[in-house]
């Protein structure tokens, strides 16, 4: 290194780079003072959460079975087995209609 280079180095070193802006230091502090949660911790938390959820489901199912043990569902009505009343039976029912409240049926209509 020659003497003239010493002068250049001295001139350059006389200048100081700008300091870091406060905002950048704050961003670094946020990154370094509050490090992100480790991957292993996340996996552990996921397992604990999943286990708790599974336990809730199991307890729910068992409780449901205790409260309503083997209740068989109602059989659905078989619509095909329905037989409509015959005309004679219908007229008989109308004839007996006198016992019904007046105005609900016409008792003479069966004899017409």
């Amino acid at each position, binding site marked *: 290194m020659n003497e*003239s280079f010493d002068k250049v180095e001295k001139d350059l070193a006389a200048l100081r780079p*700008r300091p870091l802006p406060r905002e950048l230091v704050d961003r670094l502090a946020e990154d370094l003072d509050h490090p992100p949660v480790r991957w292993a911790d996340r996996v552990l938390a996921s397992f604990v959460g999943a286990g708790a959820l599974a336990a809730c489901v199991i307890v729910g199912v068992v409780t449901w079975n205790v409260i309503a043990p083997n209740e068989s569902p109602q059989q659905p009505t078989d619509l095909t087995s329905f037989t409509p009343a015959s005309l004679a039976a219908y007229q008989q029912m109308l004839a007996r209609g006198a016992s019904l409240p007046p105005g609900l049926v016409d008792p003479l209509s069966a004899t017409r």
Partner: protein
Amino acid sequence: MAADESESWRRWLDRHGSALLLLARQLCHRTSDAEDAVQDGFVRFWRSRARANDPPAYLFACVRSAAMDSTRGRRRRARHEADAATFDARSSVFAASVEHQELRTNVESALARLPAEQREVVVMKIWGELTFAQIGKALTISPDTAASRYRYALAKLEPALASGAAR
């Protein structure tokens, strides 16, 4: 995190922060890109410093690598738009007193004319205060190559600074 750990990274930042930002500014066009590079590079350095043979050289290498990283996220794009208005005011890379204003202008323009590979060696040597061996490690070149680039750079800077001083 322990308080001494926090103090520890702050000491590193106080010691090297401004030189790191200056280095990043040599590689990034925008101030905000350079600041992002310092943030990313410094965090990367701090979390992996245990495996560094030469921590100061590794720190400069991390920031240089971050500055050269061309991928930019959405967060950065948004901030670029936000501080576009203040870009010009912050574009000067040196904090110069009144008597050094002319020197600052000369140095900035002379540095800007240097090839990037020489510019980064000058920044690491003068303001980063790294040895040629450390610069070689940071740039993955030999110490001799680092010294050679430095000499070429000074040879180019000398007339620029001399003419500025003569005016």
